[in-house]
Structure formats: C-alpha cells, structure tokens
C-alpha cells in the first residue's frame, strides 16, 4: 500500500526554504522562483513533436466523442416509427460516414508525417525510441476509434441488405395485398428490434404474422362479403398457413445467410490484418535477399581477382626462376 508523501515533500521544501533564508544562502529562486521557472520554461523548445502528437490525440478524441454522441441516433432505426427526436435520415448518416472517413484519413496522414519527421533532427537513440513508441500508441488509439465507426457502419449496412432482400420477396397474386401488408410489418418489426441480435427476433415476427392474419381475416369478412362459403374460407386459411410456412423458411434462410456473411466478414478482417503484417515481413525479406545477392556478386568478383592475382604471381615467380637459372648458366659459361 503506497503512502503519499507529497505533502511531506512540500513541507520539507518550505523548511528548506526558510532554513536557507535564515542562513542567508542565496537560493537559485526564492521569491523570484516562480518567475524564473516561467522564464526558463518558455525559451525551452516546447517540443514540437510532442505538441503535434498531442494535437493529433485530441483530434482523435474529438472524433470519438462525435461518433459516440450520434451513435444512438445512427443505430436507432427507422425514423418514421420513432418520434422526431431521434430522427436521422439516410443522407445524414451518409454525411456522418463520409466525414468520419475523411477525418480518419487526415489523422493517419498526420501520423505518417510525424513519423517521417520524428527521426530527422534528433540524434539521440532514446528520444527516437520514445517517439516511435508514442506514434505506435497514437496509431493504436486511432485503430480503436475506427473500430467503433466500422461497427456502427456494419450494423447499418446489414440492415440495408436485410431490407432489400425482404422487399424483393415475390408475393402470390391473390393474396398480394395481404403480402404487402405483412411484408411491411415483417420488415418494420425486425428492423425495429434488431439492435444487435437478429436471432432473437423470431418471436415478434411470428407473433405479428399470426396476429395480422386473423385481422386480415376479419377485415376480409367485414368487407361485407357474406357469400364466402366455408370452403372458400378454409382454402384461404390453408393458403395463409402455407404462406406463413414459406415466410418462415425464407426467414430462416435469411438468418443463416446473415450469420455466414458476418462470419465471412470477420474472417476477412483477420486475413487482411495478417496479410498486412506479412507484407511488412516480406518487404524485409526482400531487402535482405537483395542485399545477399549483391554480396554474393561482390564475392564472386573478389574471387576472380584473387585467382588472377594468383596466376599473375605464379607467372612472375616462374619468370624470376628462369632468369636466375639463365644467369647462372651464363656466369658459369663466362667463367669457364
């Protein structure tokens, strides 16, 4: 359990100050201490790098706040059901998407710029390490905020796809009106409740469908057609049942496909991450291999040189020996 002795420290500072004053020692500050600090602080380079880094961080923070603020409205579905408060039209959503993307792009560009500049003037190893670590942190932060955004967007896209798929359902001719009404209710209700889990919406849909059917049944009756024979009612009811079955199976299939698509998108994400990682490594390897081929080429050149020198050396030695032997012979002949 740590004990905070900051107050003790401040008290000791005061004691030392008073003691120094009593002793008459010139303190490098004293009453002017605060002013001196300010003076000393301002001419010190305010750390261009860290200032800019902090700016980027605050930008990203603003983006995050903005996204979180409008998140509820964004996710919240179809405005014609809710009251005016939470309304957000599609154009507004598109606007938000575009703005967020531009913002993220500028932020990542700023980070890249900082990274390039960071290593320019400074020669100290520690400062370089520190700066690259800081940039890593900022990138990580940006990634997390981007994830927020992409989650939102994924939900929205999924809903749009759902809507399109359902609205494409081909109804049968005689129950067309009923189809359109039921399909509308079907499309409205799942979108209304599918915040996160489309799976759990089976119940409302199934409940609504049987509800609407009897309603339509009563409407059909109350339209004043007393000539509807019991057989016709029965056939209509059978058709209704059949249609319910069809809708349910269609809905099941749709749900399955949703699940698959989500899985596939997740897999894609993972794969892209891995591929990007591997890209960096492959670049590295490429550099190394290029360096290695250069070295080998140079090695070959050197070996060739060495062989040539060897050969040349041998020639000279041979020549020298032959000259020596000839000179010996000559001297011998001359002498005798």
């Amino acid at each position, binding site marked *: 359990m740590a*004990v905070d002795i900051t107050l003790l420290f401040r008290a*000791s500072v005061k004691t030392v100050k008073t003691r120094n004053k009593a002793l008459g020692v010139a303190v490098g500050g004293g009453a002017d201490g605060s002013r001196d600090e300010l003076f*000393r602080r301002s001419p010190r380079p305010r750390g261009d790098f860290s200032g800019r880094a902090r700016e980027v961080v605050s930008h990203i923070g603003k983006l995050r706040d903005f996204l979180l603020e409008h998140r509820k409205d964004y996710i919240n579905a179809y405005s014609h059901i809710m009251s005016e408060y939470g309304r957000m039209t599609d154009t507004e959503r598109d606007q938000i998407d575009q703005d967020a993307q531009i913002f993220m792009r500028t932020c990542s560009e700023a980070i890249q710029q900082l990274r390039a500049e960071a290593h320019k003037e400074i020669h100290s190893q520690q400062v370089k390490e520190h700066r690259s670590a800081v940039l890593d942190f900022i990138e990580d932060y940006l990634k997390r905020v981007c994830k927020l955004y992409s989650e939102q967007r994924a939900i929205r896209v999924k809903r749009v796809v759902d809507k399109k798929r359902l609205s494409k359902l081909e109804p049968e001719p005689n129950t067309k009106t009923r189809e359109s009404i039921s399909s509308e209710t079907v499309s409205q209700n799942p979108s209304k409740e599918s915040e996160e889990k489309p799976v759990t919406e089976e119940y409302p849909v199934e409940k609504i469908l049987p509800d609407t059917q009897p309603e339509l049944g009563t409407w059909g009756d109350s339209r004043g057609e007393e000539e509807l024979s019991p057989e016709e009612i029965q056939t209509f009811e059978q058709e209704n049942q059949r249609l319910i079955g069809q809708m349910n199976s269609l809905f099941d299939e749709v749900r399955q*496909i949703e699940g698959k698509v989500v899985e596939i998108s*997740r897999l894609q994400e*993972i*794969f892209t991450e891995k591929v990007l990682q591997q890209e960096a490594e492959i670049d590295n390897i490429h550099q190394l291999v290029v360096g290695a081929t250069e070295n080998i080429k140079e090695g070959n050149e050197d070996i060739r040189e060495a062989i040539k020198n060897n050969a040349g050396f041998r020639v000279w030695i041979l020549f020298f020996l032959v000259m020596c032997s000839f000179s010996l012979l000559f001297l011998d002949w001359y002498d005798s």
Partner: protein
Amino acid sequence: MVGVKMAAAAASIRERQTVALKRMLNFNVPHVKNSTGEPVWKVLIYDRFGQDIISPLLSVKELRDVGITLHLLLHSDRDPIPDVPAVYFVMPTEENIDRMCQDLRNQLYESYYLNFISAISRSKLEDIANAALAASAVTQVAKVFDQYLNFITLEDDMFVLCNQNKELVSYRAINRPDITDTEMETVMDTIVDSLFCFFVTLGAVPIIRCSRGTAAEMVAVKLDKKLRENLRDARNSLFTGDTLGAGQFSFQRPLLVLVDRNIDLATPLHHTWTYQALVHDVLDFHLNRVNLEESSGVENSPAGARPKRKNKKSYDLTPVDKFWQKHKGSPFPEVAESVQQELESYRAQEDEVKRLKSIMGLEGEDEGAISMLSDNTAKLTSAVSSLPELLEKKRLIDLHTNVATAVLEHIKARKLDVYFEYEEKIMSKTTLDKSLLDIISDPDAGTPEDKMRLFLIYYISTQQAPSEADLEQYKKALTDAGCNLNPLQYIKQWKAFAKMASAPASYGNTTAKSMGLLSRVMNTGSQFVMEGVKNLVLKQQNLPVTRILDNLMEMKSNPETDDYRYFDPKMLRGNDSSVPRNKNPFQEAIVFVVGGGNYIEYQNLVDYIKGKQGKHILYGCSELFNATQFIKQLSQLGQK
C-alpha cells in the same frame, strides 16, 4: 460471506504486487480499463533493485500496455526528453538521491513522479527538496510516494528478499564467526525492512513464532517492534487503510514462522528430482529466467571457417506458461512424458489445420452449396482464431524441450539419479546398499562437488559421528576426487554446536522406488532417451521445515516447537508469553527462512498444503541459492 472474504484474503502475493506496480505506473491512480481511452505516455526510470522487482512480474509488452515508452536504468546516460512525465522507482540510497537531484538540475523530463521502494527518511527528502529548489523545479515534482515493495515475488506464493545485495544477507554473512554487532544490526535491519514491506503489501498483521536463540529470533523481535510502532501510530498506520480490502476482515490472521537455516543444512545440499528444483540446481536459473548454452550440432567445418560459436539462449519461465505451472513440481520422467504428449497433441492440431487447407482447395471448385460452405467457414474461423494459440503452444513446447534436454544431459553426465536415490536413503536412515566410499571413489559419477554434497549429507544426518579412521578414509577419497575440504570444517563446527543446542532434525521415512526402466522407455518411445536413468518415484516426505510448520499451524504439541516464542504485534502489552493465545489452527501461514532457502523446501511445502483444503502457504527466504552457491559459502566459512 465471510468465507468468501477469507478466500479472497489469501490472494496471491504476486497479484497484489502486480496491482500495486500497475497503479504506481498509472501515476498512483487506480487503473481503470477503458478501451477507448486516450493514450498517455510516460518514461520509467528504475535502479537495479527496481529492475529485479519489476522483471518477474511485468513483461515489456505489459509495460507498453500501461503506456511506458522507455524504461531506463537510473545510473545510465539519459538524454533529455521534453514533455514527458517520468516515473521513478528506486531505493532511497545516497547515490540514487544524488543522481535524481542531478536529473532535476538537468531538467531531463517534464514532470517527476518519485516512488521509493521502501520508506525514505526525512533528511533525504530534504536533500531532494533542496535540489529541487536549486533547480527551480519544485512544481515539476508532481508526486512523491513510498511504495513499500521491497521484496521480489517469484511465484504466486514464493518471495525472495533481494537479489542485488544478497551478499549482505547471505548465510555466510549471518553465520560468520567474525561478525560484529553493528554489521549484524544492519543485516537484521535490511531483512526486517523487507519483511515489513511484505506485510504492508499483504495487508495483514501476522502472529509471529520463531525458535529461540537463533538469528530468526532477532528478526522476530525487531519485526514485532516495527509492526507495533506502526500500529500504535494511528495517524499514519499502514494497516488501517480501506484499500486493504479483505485482509482486514478475515477472522484469522496469518501465522509467520521464522526459521533459521541452521535447522536443516542437508536440504540445500540435496540432489533433487523435481523439474523446477532440477532446473535451479543444474542450469543457470535466476529470477524466473533460464540461461542455456546451446552448442549447435557438430558439422564438418570447411577449412578456414570461423570456429563455431555456442548460442546462448535465455528463456523466461512465467506463470503464463501453463505447462510450467502444471509440471514444475513433478518428477522429471513425468515431465519428459508430458512434453511428448503436448508435442503430439500439437501435431494433431496442426494436421487438422493443414487438412482444412486441402479441403478448402477442393471444395472451391464445386458450386459450393450453402451448407458445405457454412461448415467450412465455421471451421476456418475456429482454425484462424486458434492459430495464435497454436503458435504459443509450439513456442512453449520448444522451450521446454530445450530446457528438459539440457537438464537430462546433466543428469546423465553426473549420474544425478544415483545420488538422489542414495541421499534419500541416507536421509531416511534405511540401509544402504552401496557403501559411501564406493560412490565417492567412483570416478565417473558426478563432479567433485556432487561427492562433497553427498558426504556432507551423510555427515549431517548420522546420529553419531563416524570414527576417526573412517573419517580419514573419506577425506582421502574426497581429496582424491578433487574436492575442497573446507566445507567439512564448517559442518563439523556446526554439528558440534547443534548437538549442544538441540537434537539434530530427523527427516522422516521415505523410500524411492525405481520402476522398470525398459518398459517405460518402450512405452513412451520418446526422444528423451532415458535409458540408463532410473525412473524414480518420489514418495511423500516431510522436510524439517514442513514438519515445524505443520506443528505450529495445527497447534500440535511437539517438543521441537513447544518452546518457540510467540509474538503478537496487535496485543497491547509487549510481552513475549510463550503461550499462544489462539487455540484454533491457522488457515494461512508464511514460512520465512533466515539465511537462505531453495526450491526443494518450497516444493515440499506446496505438496504438503495441497492435501489440506482451504489453507494457504507463502514461502519466503532471505536469499535463494542452489547447492553450488551454498557449498561455496560453506567453504568460505570453513576457511577461517
């Protein structure tokens, strides 16, 4: 309700220390995990003590997660990094303070958060204040804290006092014949300081029991005094904060048993057979890190090539490593088998992933009905998400294969299994089948040091000393084998002293059976070729320290422990009645060995407590040595 709190009170010391460290790194504000929080970057400066404390607990990645961009040693050359807060984690010694004042003068960082590992004295605080004033940097010093973390936690339930200055508190330092009173005081103060920090972090005030007339008693007296002073000082007491949590509410206070190394000198010399203890004994194992020297295989090196370098590898054996956690106490052949099993299961999983690849390749050419696709996507997802796990598993398997192979080589070269069996027999006083002289004069059984160890164990555990003629024979055999006889001198002295004080400790009954080695080898078919190495099975035995603990925890009456002193810092009257007030058995105990401990005792305690439900033991020692280091200390003592 109270039961839950009691279980929480026994939270591992490692977790507590880690939490305290993380809080300190977060500027001493409790850490709140926020997934979209802004990054805060800082620089960590530590001295060697701080480094030893942090390195077993936090990896570099975890430091990064908390926001540390750079971690530097205090006494290295550091460049000014503007606009960055710096967190210092140092001991309040003179040189550290000087260096910190120098930093303040050079204005290296923007703001300073000073954390002292143990309490700083008022005068040193004033030194810093002076320097801060001189450098006009008083506002830069943002916070000053006393962290009370002056101990190193190695395992969930094991801690060591210090690593840097272990010369100061080693067995040799405490038992030197020429030690002066002041030196003894310093040593005792260091030990008590660390123990005090330990109890502050644990958040509980223990009941202390120690034997009479030993160094442990001195430590107990001082510790009791220090705890008492702190409790009386109601304003600054460290034990009444509400951050202590469950430690405050449990019924039971933990029991601190202080024992001295002199109770049992045979255990540190013992040859061992469990994995962790073997690694510590045979390889270079230090603060949870193993350093291996790997020699690459013999190849025909072409003429003119550079000589082969031996690779040095070091591995961290951390609590995250599940294999290590499971098997650190198992006998070595079991470990070998388990590594094999893990390797096979890893290969099976790898094959599945590879098979998936071929399936995908084939199916991609068909139309791909939705149902087939669904199976494959699910499989693919699970395979991809399990890939990092697989890689991690492979890394661990490689690590343990290397470590175990290195250990096995040593065992084979030095015939450690023979020694182990023999020593077990000696310590349990069963009949010996081979005479001691045979083993000592056997030229290829172990290094001279091993023989010395064996002989010392024999000498320590016999009831009556061997006759002079026998002794001469042994001595001659030992010198022939190349041993240094100094440790023997010291042990003779010790034995004489121990006989005066009390009866030597007995080791209980134990047997070591050897199983049919051929059948085991055929069954496992492992790459660990264990032929020639006996497969010994350990039977449960209780070392002296464990027995003492058992007596004290269960309040059994036993002539050994009946006259142990009893201290309770919370009692108003500071007397030392030998009659314990509390008649119930304790649930939590801390065993601390003054003078050095080792993994064999630790393992024994762990095994002992496994059998008991709901009880916890923490093991601590003033230093951790293996037999080699202990022999060195003994020979230094015997030289005088």
